[in-house]
């Protein structure tokens, strides 16, 4: 009897003791705390490289502590204090939390900042406050495109896609999904891609294209899951941020990253100083390192494969070892991207994401069924090209519904007008989504019936 009580108590004591033993001892020197969305590999590589530099020793920086926080908690975590630097997460996240950042002022860091262009291929690499001071600066750049699995497309007789339209074409429709896409609610990088499409093709045609891509494909919960799907050959193509593609290419020559020429943009991934940091000078030293040519070389590590923001790095020893990335870098910065406005994207982002879930994600089976029927009818010659285009346009067109006796349509203006309320009021969002879902269901049904009448009547 005694043993039964003593043993568990002993175990608990051992457990607590183990915890205390493994607690890190207090270190002499500065520990910088960095809130980040960059993955473990980036953290490890930069930490190891930086702590060995003279710069780190000069500023008495002995360790870097990374806090990987999901975007919705950034405000809470930063608000608690103790964070020195914010790094990685995309311009949207940084712009949303711009009031939590502090301008860069030190001579050391500004020397590096000034060596970086204000824009690359039309996209901002820096964000300024009202007084013209730099609040964030990009430490790496990315583009958006898609990854192609050659084994898959060869096996199933698909042409290698070159543009977003290729992904939306009926040629990519099979009895099984051929494309992987993530739902915008749960992927910031894919949200960006949908925003690119909406701005490249215009609101209405953009939605039509996205609907058809989705109908050809399969929707995943995140960008990594979609990426994994194309790597394993579950699908033939996955839309993706560039460094997923580069990493795949390095691993497996069967995979290829395709940049849709003229139809994509460059994103600068920011680094910034956090308001209220107690180690401003040391933090700026780290930022200076990340932006320096020496620091930028870390991006070329074969485990990272990220595009640096400073092209000069390709002239260094490390840079010369990566001609593949240099070629991609040139392709990226000379790619004449679309006219993309961050502000425009933000103006309807919340609505766009909710609309996608209601109309495309939740109704995916219905969407696929109608799309399949239309394509089949066209392939069988039961409808002609004009009818095909008419039906497919109808299918993906932004929906309309009645409210208080009036017809309301999901135009870009409407999307913008409700955007803030959608963002701040989940109840409102839920109610709106119900209306859109019902309207979309009816729309798909109507298209289907129209198709049937064309087949039998026409």
């Amino acid at each position, binding site marked *: 009897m005694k043993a039964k009580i003593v043993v*568990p108590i002993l175990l608990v004591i051992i457990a607590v003791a*183990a915890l205390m033993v493994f607690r890190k001892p207090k270190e002499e020197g500065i520990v910088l705390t960095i809130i980040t969305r960059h*993955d473990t590999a980036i953290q490890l590589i930069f930490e190891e490289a930086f702590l060995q530099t003279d710069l780190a020793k000069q500023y008495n920086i002995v360790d870097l502590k990374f806090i990987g926080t999901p975007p919705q908690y950034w405000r809470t*975590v930063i608000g608690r204090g103790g964070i020195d630097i914010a790094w990685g997460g995309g311009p949207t996240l940084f712009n949303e939390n711009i009031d939590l950042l502090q301008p860069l002022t030190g001579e050391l860091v500004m020397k590096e900042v000034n060596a970086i262009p204000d824009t690359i291929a039309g996209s901002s690499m820096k964000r300024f406050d009202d007084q013209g001071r730099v609040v964030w600066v990009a430490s790496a750049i990315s583009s958006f495109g898609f990854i192609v699995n050659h084994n898959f497309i060869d096996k199933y007789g698909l042409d290698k896609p070159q543009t977003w339209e290729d992904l939306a074409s009926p040629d990519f429709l099979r009895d099984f999904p051929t494309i*992987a896409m993530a739902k915008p609610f749960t992927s910031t990088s894919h949200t960006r891609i949908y925003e690119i499409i909406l701005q490249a093709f215009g609101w209405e045609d953009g939605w039509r294209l996205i609907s058809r891509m989705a109908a050809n494909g399969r929707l995943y919960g995140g960008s990594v899951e979609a990426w994994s*799907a194309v790597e*394993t050959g*579950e699908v033939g193509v996955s839309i993706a941020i560039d460094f997923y593609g580069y990493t795949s290419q390095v691993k497996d020559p069967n995979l290829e990253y395709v940049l849709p020429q003229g139809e994509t943009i460059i994103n600068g991934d920011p680094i910034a100083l956090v308001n209220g940091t107690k180690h401003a000078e040391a933090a700026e030293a780290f930022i200076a390192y990340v932006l320096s040519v020496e620091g930028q070389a870390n991006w070329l590590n074969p485990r990272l494969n990220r595009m640096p923001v400073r092209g000069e790095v390709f002239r260094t020893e490390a840079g010369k070892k990566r001609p593949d990335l240099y070629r991609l870098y040139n392709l990226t910065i000379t790619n004449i991207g679309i006219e993309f406005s961050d502000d425009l994207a933000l103006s309807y982002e919340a609505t766009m994401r909710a609309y996608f879930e209601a109309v495309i994600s939740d109704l995916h089976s219905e969407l696929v069924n109608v799309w399949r029927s239309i394509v089949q009818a066209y392939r069988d010659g039961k409808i002609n090209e004009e009818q095909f285009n008419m039906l497919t346009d109808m299918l993906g067109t932004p929906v309309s519904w009645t409210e208080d006796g009036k017809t309301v349509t999901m135009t870009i203006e409407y999307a913008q007008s409700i955007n803030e309320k959608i*963002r701040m009021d*989940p109840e409102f969002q839920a109610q709106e989504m119900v209306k859109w879902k019902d309207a979309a269901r009816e729309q798909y049904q109507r298209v289907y019936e129209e198709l049937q009448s064309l087949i039998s009547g026409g």
Partner: protein
Amino acid sequence: MQIPELKTTLREVKWELDGLSVIQLVSVTSIFTLFMIIPLVSVLYYAFVYQGSFSLFWIKQIFSDAFYFPDSLSSMSLTFYRRAGGNRILITGPDLGVIPNTIFVGTCTTIFATVIGVTLAFIFSRYDFPLKDYFRVAIMVPMLSIPFVGAIGLKKMIHADGFLNTLFYEKLGILPVKIGVEGLAAVIFVQTLMFYPIVYVNAFTAFMNIDPAMEEQAKNLGSHGFHLFRTVTLPLALPGIEAGAILTLILSIEDLGTPIVFQGTTAEKTLTYQIFTKIFTPKGLIRPDATALAAILLSISIFSFVAIRKYVSMRKYAMLTKGEAGKRMISKASKLQCVLIYMLLTGILFFALLPHIGVFLLAFSETWGTRLLPESFTIANFRAIFTNKDVIRAFTNSLSYSTAATFLIIVLGTSAAYLVSRKHIPGMSLLDTLVTLPISIPGVVIATGLFLVFLNSPLDPLKSPIPLLILSYTIRKFPFTVRSAFAGFEQTHVEFEEAALNLGASRLKTFVDISLKLVWMNILAGGMLSFVYCMNEVSTGIVIGSAKPEEGPITLKMLDVLYMLAGGPHMTAAIGVILMMLQLASILVSTYLLRQKATALISI
């Protein structure tokens, strides 16, 4: 209630509740109120509020949306499979709308898992055959679901160009077509293999606890074979089997990991997956439509639990003796029986261990393209994680938290089971429901609730997530021990305790020296399950743990490492293998103890 009746009831309560019972009752209910009920209510609140006042609007909304609940036959899909591209058959299962899908999956999984679990338990408790000890451990391994990489491992094995299809279709030519499984069919398949050990463990204990004298007497009276099994053995073991089946049903309904693996197919159209993906807006606000789904999920679980318990309570049989008054009736299996047994075991194990095989292959390689096996094998991943201080710390964190939680679970869980089984006062079935509830609450709901309620309190996760983690593990893995202990108490006649009390022993002494001694095997079985599941726990670990990652559990670290772009899955798989070994060790220990116990038990 009339005054005389009220007085009688109060007197009964006063009689039943001695000092010990009161302490037990108060500790259990306060822990559950603080760390389950209040957080739960803080989240579910949103499901019942519309435009500022109480309303069933969101619930009604869900039921009028054909995505969640079909409005006609045409909105359901009843085709169980389809052809995909000439040489592929995809088994998908139906699509009946999110809510019916969940119930369908739960029912099928429970039925299949119970059949498998009971069959295995019977074989292992009544037959002897070569290699029995190895198989005994092997059949428990599927329970060790490995977070994140288990999914990747499984997919690599079963997908159209994966291991199984390449082997059986391409290389061996046994199959005429490639077979893929997705959608609800995949979920049922994987869940059955994941949960049958729960039924097995509880059914095995129940079979072992049956007094052989019962079966002997029945045989003397002419019953044997299946008749004996059906009329004597099975009913006597029913409390144990019921415990396993209930847990399986509720776990199946609450399971998030499997739908995540098969996302992109109808597997997504299950309640937990929908709640998980929809509960937060990108800004971090709670969506009322998702919490309404959580409320519906909870109702289904509670209803199933109560219904099953009611059904079985009408047919329970406690025994006057426990274990063996005489020799254990284990017979040596004949050659034919051996062959059948081996076929059954290898068949089950082959499929159940697919994720684990996949994980092993991932762990011992650095890249694995779309071929049959990885190109080359290495132990580099293991070397990397053993030299990584963050990973080691995460392991010790998990071990400490799980141990502390299991200790709390055993003490409080046994108390709760004892109260429910022995104390006949109003409210005991409510207590029973309360302590089994945690497994039917989606982890993400509890995690969110705990975070919301305890932010800015002494237990603030942003200051240190440790207390909340231990408490959330305790709550979430409580039911395994409770149900096992409860089954043990139900199988043991109360007359043992009454005899001790009659002879002058105090309540405490009776509880410790008689009750606990008679059911410790059950407690051990349940406690082991609880510990193993604590180590595996994902939802609260990653939400609460992320507040301060260095104090987070190993599952949080795995997620971190997984998203590492180069070799992430491989390193995570290596961590998964270590995790599996640790859990296997605890299973081995308790299996060993249980086996000893079976032959050494002394009965009155």
